């Protein structure tokens, strides 16, 4: 459970220095990851890098292993082979609470809001270092005043975030009563409450209506410009090609192509993969 001492400061400086170059150090790198489930090979040597402060798209036909890759990166499943490095640190095999605490937060393909909790409660759950998470602080008179102050600050943050996503009018609704698109927004907003460096978004636009989708994309680009990195799985090819700086194509548990949208578009193998042709 113990982690090597963090070298954030130097890494941060290094990254800024490097970003002036053409190629920055990758913030997330997946190297030769393999995973089999009872004889079925789900991942067969997945390797790719994600550059900091980009929108990176992860695409591929159904069953290509995109969600499994997300599960490996976030720590929900441990890979049989290969390594995952995040911000200069080997995070292979870390538990989900450790990767998310380190700054790598994911959302799910089917939104997993806390359905019996209000939208605000959903938003106020994630932030770390909440004193009130210690039972005795939550109870003890006197000490509890400190918890209340934290809660006030947290409410402010959560409220701003809800306003940013334009769902503040839903603050007191039970999350389970929200529409599919609203849940997606809530899940993204909730993940951002952890102030992550990298967000793994699994089909963030599924079920989101087109006008909202454009809105959401604007927000993602806004957040990227403020220094966050996004890796998103998406089926809408046009959307990926239009908005992502880099695209990773997966097929049959392997990385097929990595490159700019133009490079990927012109790649023969990608078309074959999508049209069902055999890959050499």
């Amino acid at each position, binding site marked *: 459970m113990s982690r090597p001492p963090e070298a954030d400061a130097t890494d941060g400086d290094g990254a800024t220095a490097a970003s002036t170059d053409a190629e920055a150090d990758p913030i997330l790198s997946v190297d030769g990851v393999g995973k089999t489930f009872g004889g079925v090979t789900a991942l067969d040597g997945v390797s790719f890098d994600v550059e900091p402060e980009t929108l990176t798209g992860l695409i591929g036909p159904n069953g290509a292993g995109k969600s499994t890759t997300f599960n490996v990166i*976030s720590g*929900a499943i441990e890979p049989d082979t290969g390594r995952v490095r995040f911000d200069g640190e080997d995070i292979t095999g870390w*538990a*989900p*609470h450790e990767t*998310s*605490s380190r700054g790598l*937060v*994911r959302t*799910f393909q089917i939104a*997993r*809001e*806390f*359905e*019996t*909790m*209000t939208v*605000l*409660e959903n938003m*106020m*759950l*994630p932030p*770390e270092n*909440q*004193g*009130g*998470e*210690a*039972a005795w602080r*939550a*109870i003890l008179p006197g000490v*509890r005043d400190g*918890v*209340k102050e*934290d*809660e*006030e600050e947290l*409410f402010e943050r959560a*409220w701003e975030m809800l306003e940013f996503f334009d769902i*503040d009018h839903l*603050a*007191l609704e*039970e999350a389970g009563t929200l529409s599919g698109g609203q849940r997606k927004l809530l899940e993204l907003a*909730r*993940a951002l409450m*952890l102030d992550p460096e990298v967000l793994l978004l699994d089909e963030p636009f599924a079920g989101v209506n087109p006008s909202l989708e454009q809105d959401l994309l604007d927000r993602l680009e806004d957040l990227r410009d403020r220094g966050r990195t996004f890796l998103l799985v998406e089926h809408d090819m046009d959307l990926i090609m239009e908005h992502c700086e880099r695209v990773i194509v997966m097929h049959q548990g392997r990385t097929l192509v990595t490159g700019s949208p133009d490079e990927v578009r012109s790649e023969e193998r990608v078309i074959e993969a999508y049209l069902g042709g055999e890959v050499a």
Partner: protein
Amino acid sequence: MSERTADPIGRRLPDPLAAYWARDIVKIFGTLGVVYALYLFVGFLLGYDLFGQLNSLRRLTFLIVVYGIAALVVNLHWGYAGLFNIGVVGFMAIGVYTATILSRPVAGQNPTGSLPGFGWPLALAVVAGVLAAAAAGYVAALPSLRLRDDYFAIVTLAFAEIVRITFKSSELQELTLFGWTFGTGGGRGIRTFSNPVRDFFATTGQPVVAAVEGLGLDGQVVPDWSYVLVLLAVLVGTYWLIARLSASPFGRVLKGIRDDEEATQSLAKRTASFKIRAFVIGCAILGLLGIVWQGTSSGYITPGRFLPELTFFIWIAVIIGGAGSNTGTVVGSILFVGLVLEGPAQVRRVVDEFVGLSGSAPTFPDALSALGGGNIDPVLLYVFDQTSALRVVLTGLVLIWLLKRRPQGLFGDRREVASSIDLEGRVASRRRDRTETAQGGDAD
């Protein structure tokens, strides 16, 4: 807001009453008042005198309070953290057995000649009992890290049975270890400690008892009711503790675990730690409850008092009230104890008094054959003789009715927001501010 959160009772009340009903305290005392009135009415029908009435209410209150405490713990475990604990009695047993064995007089200084122990002062033994129950909770919670709901339930049930059968074992009835002689008393049980409240009224508090007797009442009423008040204080304390725990960031994470543990983990929460802490806190309270309930009610404990049946009764109280709501849990305990647990015995008394049943029906065939002869009395007699079976039948009916009509329990869809501050108030004030700014803007 109020229409949406209204429970089945609140919905049917006329407006001015419904506004009162919206307050938790009114829900609890309103229900309690109705059940009390029912019992007083039965007492009136049966011609009880003041002492009889007081005694009947005391018995009722005692059971409501102890069931209420246990139900609150189940609500913390199941209603908040989603931990399916059906080993409630096991932790109560550990608490009371530990306190009893530690507080029994040491061998040789034992006036009654019954089982010796370690001679600890009672207060210290009680603390040790609570800690022992908490430690047992920790051990039982370890498997919960890997097991899901129903499998965890099986572990807790098995744990409680192991505890009961261990205390029943003749090997542990009396043994000598490192020069100390002690034991559980096996299946015969063990004499517990003397109740400090009763001791007080037998000595220093004697004048109070005498004064009450001067009023023409049975003096027994004083220690009896005083002890119920002590238990009531424990209930209030438990309610306060669990209400604060659930309305906090801690409670928020527990609710998150209940709704979706994997999602909670992917939001940087070590869910295992939260589950264990919630479980251990509940088990400590159960240990205390075992001591103040089973340890005092007859001065004797046997393993037979810690059958799984008791756990299930406690669960029914939570299910009636609605898991996830502390207030609902207390109201559920009042209704369960008043109507289901003690109801059949009350009905039986009234039937006895007014129908004047004659004859006897020791077995079911006896009762049936009498019915063939056109005499219904033996059937009634037979039915009301089976008070404990009637409870189970009634419990079953209540469960079926709830499952069909209101699976979430009476107050199960009530929102108890998990934050140490009033979020609804904050949001309302934000919205007010915004409207005001907007209006100000229009005026310009």
